[in-house]
């Protein structure tokens, strides 16, 4: 069974906040849900499927369904792959809808990382006592790994194998900043240059401050519906035509390769289901926790050959109206928003805006009828989950 054409993304909402000292995390989830429902033209009583990940507090789905007063939920999913979870949720919602398990699925993400201090990885050990947590914890959490330096390791190896340069990576940030200048809610609105990126302070070699995404509070929500519900609504029809997912880890340490991501597997699954190719895409939302994340995923998804990502992203090739592949036209996680350190839902939201023709006029891709959203959650340097979703605007 394929999900192609079995579900539509009919509601999409990105919370405008980027700093929320005055709101609770459940409140942000609920505000996002409310926004997505209003966007779709539905009410919370219409929701019969609920999807959330590790950022949903308490018992996740159980706590949030009860908090939001969702009375009619008959399908729940709390798949957790970090920031890419919500891309997997779109695919899973389409599956559940295709199987008749629900007709209106709500996906939410929210959190407030700006209200917490940053601690590079604790060990999690209790001296003198045994623990029973993640199997890798004892062998990895002690080394001060964070997103910055574990993605830094990937960038270092990519540079070593393919000659990728800091200047090439910088072009990814430059492109995002060109888009963010038009987004009134973007956390960083200033256009930056390659020189500014490579001269910003070093965070984790070879990644500079401006190679990193923003840290923002906030969230987002999506409504995925059956074709029948979709066609009863007054919103443009954004059809899900392909979805793929894949986990990747060090795999016992054998033949470790940090220059590719799980997109190498999730991408082909999604493209095959959709019956399209990377070159058919008019727009792409590509997870951008760091500049290197974008470059590796573009290669793995097949937008260019392995090792040629540096060349592909250079000279504004990712800037809408300038280059061949407009990406992250909201400014992405690099400039606009990376709510609760998870950029998956905003990737889908901007793709939906593009397909509806509702992106900012300065960055709207003309006749955008085919788009991709892709995410990587966890760490490219250790283990992560990749999720790819391909969407089509139905006339």
């Amino acid at each position: 069974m394929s999900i192609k054409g079995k579900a539509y993304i009919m509601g999409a909402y990105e919370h405008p906040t980027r700093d929320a000292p005055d709101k609770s995390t459940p409140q942000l989830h609920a505000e996002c849900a409310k926004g997505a429902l209003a966007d779709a033209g539905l009410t919370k009583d219409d929701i019969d499927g609920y999807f959330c990940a590790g950022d949903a507090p308490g018992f996740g789905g159980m706590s949030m369904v009860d908090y939001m007063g969702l009375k009619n939920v008959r399908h729940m999913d709390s798949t957790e792959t970090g920031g890419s979870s919500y891309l997997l949720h779109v695919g899973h919602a389409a599956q559940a809808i295709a199987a008749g398990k629900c007709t209106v699925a709500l996906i939410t993400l929210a959190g407030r990382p700006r209200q917490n201090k940053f601690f590079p990885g604790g060990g999690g050990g209790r001296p003198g006592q045994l623990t029973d947590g993640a199997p890798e914890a004892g062998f990895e959490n002690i080394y001060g790994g964070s997103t910055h330096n574990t993605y830094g390791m990937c960038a270092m190896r990519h540079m070593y194998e393919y000659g990728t340069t800091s200047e090439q990576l910088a072009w990814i940030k430059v492109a995002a900043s060109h888009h963010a200048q038009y987004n009134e809610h973007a956390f960083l609105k200033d256009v930056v240059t390659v020189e500014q990126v490579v001269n910003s302070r070093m965070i984790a070699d070879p990644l500079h401050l401006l190679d990193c995404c923003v840290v923002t509070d906030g969230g987002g929500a999506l409504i995925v519906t059956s074709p029948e519900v979709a066609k009863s609504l007054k919103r443009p029809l954004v059809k899900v035509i392909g979805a793929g997912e894949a986990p990747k880890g060090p795999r016992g340490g054998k033949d470790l390769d940090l220059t590719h991501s799980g997109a190498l597997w999730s991408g082909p699954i999604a493209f095959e289901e959709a019956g399209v190719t990377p070159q058919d895409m008019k727009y792409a939302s590509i997870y951008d926790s760091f500049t290197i994340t974008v470059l590796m995923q573009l290669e793995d998804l097949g937008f260019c050959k392995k090792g040629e990502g540096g060349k592909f992203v250079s000279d504004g090739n990712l800037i809408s109206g300038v280059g061949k592949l407009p990406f992250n036209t909201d400014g992405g996680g690099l400039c606009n928003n990376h709510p609760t350190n998870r950029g998956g839902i905003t990737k889908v939201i901007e793709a939906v805006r593009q397909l509806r023709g509702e992106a900012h006029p300065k960055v709207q891709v003309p006749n955008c009828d085919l788009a991709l959203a892709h995410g990587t959650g966890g760490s490219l340097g250790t283990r992560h989950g990749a999720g790819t979703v391909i969407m089509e605007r139905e006339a």
Partner: protein
Amino acid sequence: MSQAQDKPAEGRKIPAPAVTIESKPFWDAAEQGKFLIKRCNACNEPHWYPRALCPFCFSDDTVWEESPGEGVIYTYSTMHRSPTGPYAIGYVTLNEGPAVLTNFVDCDLSKLAIGQKVKVKFQATEGGPPVPVFSPV
């Protein structure tokens, strides 16, 4: 970044590792200064981190093996966003094959390079067993 800041982070304390019933033999050996890896008797593949079941063939006939802890740097990143000063994280490809996540210590962090030969040593932790780290040889 000044040169002074790129010296190894003497101040960074390594937290106690999380020890499980499955990994306890590794940490008991670490207390004795021995670096163990796991090898599968069924398929003969060594793996890292150590597991009871082989991640390649799923046999439960895996055994501890002492390793000299020698290999080369696969990749690394020096972390500058640290209240106790820069430190380096990376992977070592052991001569036996598996890649091991670790810290590089007792060296000039600005001279680290992919392909460089390194060897294991153990570093004290905050109340737990010592953990394997690597230095250039």
